[in-house]
């Protein structure tokens, strides 16, 4: 005679409680990994402490304890709730762990470069990490707390309350960007995303968060990208536009919901450069754009309605912080001198008797990169450029530490 099945009453007896218990167990494994492995970057320790504390709160959660100790496998609502809780913990652990792996291969020079640019924009920077989640593809920035971490702990009262005011961004890179220091200036735009969302908030002045359709949202998305291009251009000069043109011209295949067509972006950048007295550089971008066959770039679309007002407001905000990088004095001559030295693999720490400013170095690096691109020692050139960027960063940090 078959034995009558006894209804599940403890964690060992049903799949739902077992699954939740196993998720908690996995959190202990991850805790160990976080304690053992360093997370690179100025906010690596912050991220580590954040995750370890959330894990601790999940492990001690009264809510989780209740789910485990009061199983109701005959109640459909309990099954949906405990399954959801397990899935949320698993998703949180996956998101938290991803950065251990994706952040492990970031070169220190790159960390120092992004740190320098970030500090330039803001005295009290928002926490961020760099990650390399893919080999090819374009960089992008995520509000990691809001998009990846918080959604998965919203259900658990204790971790949710703790994480309520925490912030962390992730700048995602591909190895093709990481390995070529000449392309690092593309990351200025990514840093600008963080600064715009937490510091300038220019977009909020012109666009409501609420929309009725995807067209309105597309316009707001495009405006945001134009803002970040403009921050990069106003603060760092032609280098961002030059690298954008060099790396991505002719690669678009369809109109995007999130980014304006490249032709529009570069035309706006060119106009900003002309206003900042970089007339030759502005003209160069316009000329290059004309050379690209129309079929290779998307048909021109209308600019977002408030583009001019947005750019004016941004210029004021940047000028008030003393961050506008205009063409003044003998800056162009300095940049040319640095470019020549870079091509000759000569140190660029001091040029013409003056310590090289990192923005001048970056702007020079583009011209050197164009010339060196077809040379057999291009790889060595990139390595040399990375060294020069690091030295310029060190110089700047020493200057901050010991102001004259």
């Amino acid at each position: 005679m078959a034995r009558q099945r006894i209804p599940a009453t403890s964690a060992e007896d049903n799949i739902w409680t077992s699954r939740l218990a196993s998720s908690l167990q996995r959190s202990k494994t991850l805790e160990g990994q976080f304690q053992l492995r360093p997370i690179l970057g100025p906010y690596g320790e912050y991220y580590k402490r954040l995750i370890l504390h959330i894990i601790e709160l999940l492990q001690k959660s009264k809510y989780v304890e209740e789910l485990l100790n009061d199983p109701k496998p005959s109640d459909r609502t309990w099954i949906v709730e405990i399954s959801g809780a397990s899935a949320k913990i698993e998703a949180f652990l996956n998101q938290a762990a991803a950065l251990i792996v994706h952040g492990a291969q970031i070169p220190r020079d790159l960390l120092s470069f992004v740190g320098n640019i970030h500090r330039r924009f803001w005295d009290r920077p928002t926490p961020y990490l760099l990650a390399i989640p893919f080999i090819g593809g374009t960089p992008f920035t995520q509000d990691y707390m809001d998009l990846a971490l918080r959604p998965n702990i919203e259900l658990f009262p204790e971790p949710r309350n703790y994480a309520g005011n925490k912030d962390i961004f992730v700048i995602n890179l591909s190895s093709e960007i990481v390995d070529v220091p000449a392309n690092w200036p593309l990351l200025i735009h990514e840093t600008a995303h963080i600064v715009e969302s937490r510091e300038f908030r220019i977009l909020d002045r012109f666009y409501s968060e609420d929309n009725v359709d995807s067209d309105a949202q597309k316009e707001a998305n495009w405006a945001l990208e134009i803002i970040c291009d403009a921050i990069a251009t106003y603060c760092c000069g032609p280098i961002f536009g030059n690298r954008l043109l060099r790396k991505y011209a002719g690669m678009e295949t369809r109109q995007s919901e999130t980014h304006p067509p490249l032709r529009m972006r570069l035309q706006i950048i060119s106009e900003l450069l002309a206003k900042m007295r970089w007339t030759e550089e502005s003209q160069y971008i316009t000329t290059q754009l004309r050379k690209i066959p129309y079929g290779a770039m998307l048909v021109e679309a209308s600019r977002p309605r408030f583009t001019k007002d947005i750019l004016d407001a941004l210029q004021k905000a940047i000028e008030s912080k003393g961050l506008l990088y205009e063409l003044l004095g003998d800056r162009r001559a300095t940049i040319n001198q640095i470019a020549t030295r870079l091509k000759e693999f000569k140190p660029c720490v001091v040029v013409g008797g003056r310590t090289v400013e990192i923005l001048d170095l970056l702007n020079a690096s583009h011209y050197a990169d164009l010339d060196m691109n077809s040379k057999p020692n291009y790889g060595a050139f990139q390595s040399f450029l990375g060294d020069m960027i690091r030295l310029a960063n060190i110089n700047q940090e020493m200057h901050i530490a010991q102001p004259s």
Partner: protein
Amino acid sequence: MTRSSSYLLQFLAALRRYRDRPSKDTIERFINEDSLRFIQSSINALDKKPVPYNVLIVYKKIMSEETPIRPQEMKDGLTKLESLVHEIREGERVRKDEVDTSLKFLTSVIQLMDSEAEDLGKRLYGSSANSRDIS
């Protein structure tokens, strides 16, 4: 799994406990201003009123009637849920069958919200790194 299902799970957790032991504190423990705002925005989205895009896009499929649940059915369920929670928070006594109805609604839609969220993720971030837009 994204935020929309998290918010609905918060309501499920709160109402399931309230059903067993009616107390306003049970509701306050799980439901916060963010989850209430999400429900309100969801109702507005289904009413074709302006809402944040991340809410709008969650309901895109439901509104184009590509899912088993009808937009009106979804809106009615969310409206009942919202008023039920408000009544409880304001200290009013609510009927047990009303709680049961909302719990049944939540049980049926949480999985649906997860599949919607998966599509949303693909739309926002691309299904592969190489198909991403230029940053």
